[in-house]
Structures are given as C-alpha cells and as structure tokens.
C-alpha cells in the first residue's frame, strides 16, 4: 500500500478559535475517504490544509510525499481540489471554465481533447457546454467543479461537501460518480455532513469540534456502539427521557425529532418489557429494535466525548 496523505499532530487556530486539534490521519492510495462532521467541525479547514491553501498552526501534512508548507506548489500538481463554495467563474461558460482549468494545468493538444471528451461523458455536461456556469443548477455546478478538478488527472481528489445544497437525486448521482472513480483507483477525500453518505466511503473519520472521534471503516465504527438500538416514540418524549436517563440498561439516549433512540446493552423482549414498566403513565406509540446506522454511532461517540469532558 502506498500512503497518499499523512497528517501528524495537525492543528489550526484562527485567533482564539481552535478549528483543528492534533489530527493524525493516514490515507492510502485508492481509498474513498470520508470526513464526516456537523457544521463548524473543521472539515473545510482540514481539506484546506491538505490542499496546501492554508498553513497549519502546528504539526505537518505530507501529501503525495510533499510537505504542505515548504513544498506547497509541488502538492498542487497532484491534487484536484473542489472548495465548499463554488470556485468557478459564473460568467464563463461550462466549456470556458474547463478550458481555463486545462490551460492552468498545461493540458493541451490531443490529450486535452481526449480528457474533455471523457469528462463530458462522465458528467453529462456536454449539453450545457455553452451555458454560463452561474446559470447551472446546484448539482450541475458541483459536477462541473468535479470535472475541472479532474482535468489534470490528479492522484488525489479533495472534495469539500460536494453534495450540500444538491437535490437527493443529484446527490445519489454524484455519489455514483465518486464510486466510479473509486473503482478506477483514484484516492478521494470527501467531506460531508450527511451520515448516510458516510456509509458509502470505505473509511471514515468522524470530526467533532476539531477532533477526530473515530477513524475506521463504517462497519467497525458501527461496532463501536456497545449494544443495540431501540426506537421509542411516546406521547411525552421529554418525560420519557427523564424517566429512562439513569437506567442501568441504557447506555445512551438520542433525540431524533419525534423519536428517541435508546442505545441498550440488550434488546430482548424481557428488556423491552422493563422499559414499558418504567414508562408507566406515558402512552407508547412505538418501541422496537432497529439496526445501528452511522448516525447513531456518531451521536454515541459525540455523547461519549462530551461525557468525558464533563468527567
């Protein structure tokens, strides 16, 4: 295996705000690596550090073997970076934006023709060739961003929230593209606030308040949750939460809108009956075991981290 990205003790402060604290990560060639975390977790900061468009306050980052501060310009030959904000020119057409990207990376001649052809095919953007980029739909913009980031066949793709603000169909579509790239062996690092997208990565780093809470395959991360998830819906969730809080059998309680997810040591009928008894006087609409998803795993890890801080 070849290491493509290696981060050691990476930190970044902005004045008094600490955006990232002591990040250690190693990403191998060919991985589809997800950086998952809520708003403000530090995802963009991390990707910017990897893209060498931001310097760390402490620690080092090696990208394709190059150090991100001293050898920032070499790093840029090997990465394709797509910022969270649309970074292309809205007044230039799709074709002009792609041309510009090709010129910047010195892609010309037959190679250029061939790559443009493939990218158009891959993204389905050919129809919109002469449309100003500013007039594309959200999903199309992201696809154009991806195409521009890939024009020089980078070894590493860095995509910052490529599916935020994109409709569900386009989101699925975009992830299909990423899976295709993964199959081709391109190393891709993608950030996302969506837990369901994390399932599609082959490895995931959970980022929370600038720290990596866990970094593993989705399966292993879900296994970190020690127990089972039971879904509970009642007439008075707040009261139910209070009543169950100090139960020995319950490891964690997570609120999802109208529903409570109980992380339990066990979900046998016997245990469920015990819960029913505890909730005497509250109408129970639903109480049943459910499979653990990334979402539960993430919230479990966050709650655990917060408990540690409190302890």
């Amino acid at each position, binding site marked *: 295996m070849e290491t493509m990205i290696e981060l050691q003790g990476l930190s970044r402060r902005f004045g008094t705000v600490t955006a990232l604290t002591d990040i250690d990560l190693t990403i191998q060639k060919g991985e589809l690596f997800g950086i998952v975390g809520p708003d403000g977790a530090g995802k963009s900061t991390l990707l910017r550090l990897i893209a060498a468009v931001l310097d760390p306050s402490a620690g080092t980052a090696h990208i394709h073997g190059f150090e991100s501060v001293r050898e920032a310009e070499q790093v840029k*030959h090997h990465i394709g970076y797509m910022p969270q904000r649309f970074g292309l020119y809205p007044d230039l057409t799709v074709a002009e934006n792609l041309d510009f990207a090709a010129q910047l990376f010195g892609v010309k001649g037959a190679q250029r023709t061939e790559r443009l052809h493939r990218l158009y095919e891959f993204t389905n953007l050919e129809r919109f060739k002469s449309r100003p980029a500013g007039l594309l739909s959200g999903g199309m913009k992201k696809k154009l961003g991806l195409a521009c980031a890939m024009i020089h066949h980078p070894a590493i793709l860095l995509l910052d929230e490529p599916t935020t603000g994109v409709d569900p169909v386009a989101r699925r579509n975009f992830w299909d593209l990423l899976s295709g790239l993964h199959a081709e062996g391109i190393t891709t690092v993608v950030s996302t606030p969506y837990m369901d997208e994390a399932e599609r990565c082959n490895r995931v780093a959970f980022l929370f308040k600038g720290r990596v809470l866990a970094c593993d395959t989705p399966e292993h991360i879900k296994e970190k949750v020690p127990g089972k998830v039971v879904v509970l819906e009642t007439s008075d969730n707040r009261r139910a939460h209070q009543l169950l809080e100090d139960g020995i059998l319950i490891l964690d309680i997570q609120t999802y809108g109208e529903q409570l997810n109980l992380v339990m040591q066990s979900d046998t009928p016997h245990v469920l009956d015990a819960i029913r008894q505890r909730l005497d006087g509250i109408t129970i609409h639903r109480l049943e075991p459910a499979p653990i998803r990334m979402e539960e795993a993430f919230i479990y890890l966050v709650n655990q981290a917060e408990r540690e801080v409190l302890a």
Partner: protein
Amino acid sequence: MMLAIARKEFIHILRDRGTFLLVTIGPLFLMVIFTYTLTTDVKEAPLAVIDLAHNDASTALIDRLDASPKIHVERHLASADETDNLFKRGEVVAAVVIPADYGQVSLTRVPQVEAIIDGTEPISAETVLTEVYQIADAHSRELAGDALQSDLFEPPIYTTQERLYNDALSSKVDFYPGLMGMMLGLPAIALSLSLARERENGTLEQLMATPIAKRALLLGKLWPYLGFGMVDVYALLALGQWVYDVPFTGNLLAYSLIAFLFMFASLGMGLVVSVIARTQQVAVVIAILVFFIPPFFMSGTFFPVDAMPQLVQLEMMSLPATHFVTAGKAIYLQGTALRELWLQVVLLTVISVEMLEVSTFIFRKKVVGGFRRPAPPVLTTKENALS
C-alpha cells in the same frame, strides 16, 4: 499560464458591464464631465472694479458687468495697487480698470478697459475674462455708435497678475494633458477590484489550489487592463485633438511609450492595492485615494509642485501620474523630444518593476493571511528572559 489568466480576465471585462464601461468610455466620460464643470460652471465670480472715469459711461458699464450671471462686482477700488492683496486673500479673481477717459469717444480713439487676472485661478479667471471682454466690447461699440469705422476698435486689454507659477494664463490647453493622468487611473481602479472580487467570490481559493505562479497570475491580470488603458489613451488624444482643440504637437510614438510605461506603473500599483485589500469596498477606497485624489492635486495640473511641502513633493515622485503629467505635457504641448525626458522614462520603469515585485512578494496563495505583513516585533517576556 499567464496567457490563460489574461484571456479569462479579458472575458470578465467584456462580460461585466460595470467593468467594461469603467475601462472603455469611463475615462472619456469623466474627462467631458470634468472639463465641462471646470470651464463653464463659473457663477458670480468676484470682481474688483477700479473706476478712474466716474462718469455715466463707466457707471453703466459697471452695472452691466454686475448684471452678468457670471460676475459679481465685489469691490470698488481707488487704484490697481490693491488688487494683488485681494488676489492673495482670494477675495476676487479679476479686476477691471476703467480708464479716466472712458466714454470719450473721438474719431481716432475708443478708450478701452483693462482687465487684471489672478494667474492662480486660471479656470474661473478665463471665464471672467471672456465675459468682461464681451460686455466691454459691446458697450464701447454702443458708445461709439455708427460714427466710427470698426478698424479703430481695439479689444480690451488684459494683463495677468504674475504670482507663484503661471506666467501665462492657463487654459484647457494647459490642463488637458494633465487631466489625462487622472482619467487614466480608471483602469487601475478596475484592476484593484478584480483580485478582491475573486477573493470575495471564492474563485481565488480554487486558483490557489492550482500550481499557477504568483507572477503569472498577477501579470496575467494586468495585461488586459493595459490593453484597454492604451485604447483609452488614444481615445483621449482624439477627444483633445478634435473636440477640445488641444493640438497634439509631439511625436506620437514617444507619447505612446510614456503612456504605456505610465499605465504599467499605475496598474502595478493597482495590483498592490488588490493584494492588500480583502474586499472590493476596501479596494475601491484605497484605489480612489491612490489613483484619483493625488493626481488631481499633485501632478501639477492645477497646483504648482514647487510650492508644496517637501514631504509631499517626495511622495509625488513615487506616483506614476506625476511623471506622466510632466512628460506627457511636454510631448503633447511642446513637442519635447523623448531623450530630454529620459528621467521620467527611467522613473516610470523603476516604479513599474518595483510594483510588480512588491505585489508578487506580498501576495500569498493562502486563504487566510492572503498577504505578507511585516513580522511582529519579538517580545521578550519574563519567561523568555529566564529560560
């Protein structure tokens, strides 16, 4: 890569109406507005009258002068000696001396008034002069009636009160080449905005992640504005030549070289502004302070450079507009040869190179701390001192 940036920037200019207007008809439009307000908007200019005749004819003339919307008779003086003081205090811009024999028309002579003009107020003084001339001329023709042959008429005489610097009355002809230095600041202002705009729109972050060299990026942005700037130069020359009757007497090639160097130097300053300013708003404020106000006050267009404090003079030497106005004026109006202007050529070249180097040096391809600042002073705290 530089070519790619230049091409892209050219497209931006063509497609953004604001920028396009700013770098194409902007300088022409501004020139028209400026010369218009400078030459025609004189109202009720203060005038001193020295009436040596004290008769019906002189009283009638004074009434007519006062009646003109452009003139207001501010003071009546006993002799012309006091005018200099009044000029210095700025109380009047011109004085009219009515000779003792005014109104006594003989067969051989029609007495005429004399106008004294404040040389430091060329614009309003010129308007006043024209007005006095017309009124006095018309009045004396009326006094003479049909009895006289018109060839006996002499126009009113005018003298310029020499003070400070203007030995001849300044006019459009004198200030037009100087004003060009100011109008040609517009492309530089547009360039100042362009990098700040990319920063604001997030396109700069994308560019920073590419291997583009800093110098290629900055120079690439500069070229299209330089192209438009040169078009502006020739358009302004044409406007001066054919609309304002300011004849171009020098060598066009020499002038082009000076103008090219000036545009390059001031666009280089635009790049520096562009790198430092984080937002377009900041950029525009700095750009106006750098490209508009100083050339207006400092490039010798309206105010004599020699009369300024030394510090200000020194600062002006670093402004491309100063040298452009000096050299451009000399070629434009006097047909001075380029070899006599070698100093300006050298200075403009030095400023150009310097600005390009400074902007490249301070620009950083980083999303935070986008430009290099002087390192903060090292503080020795107690702990440091102990360890």
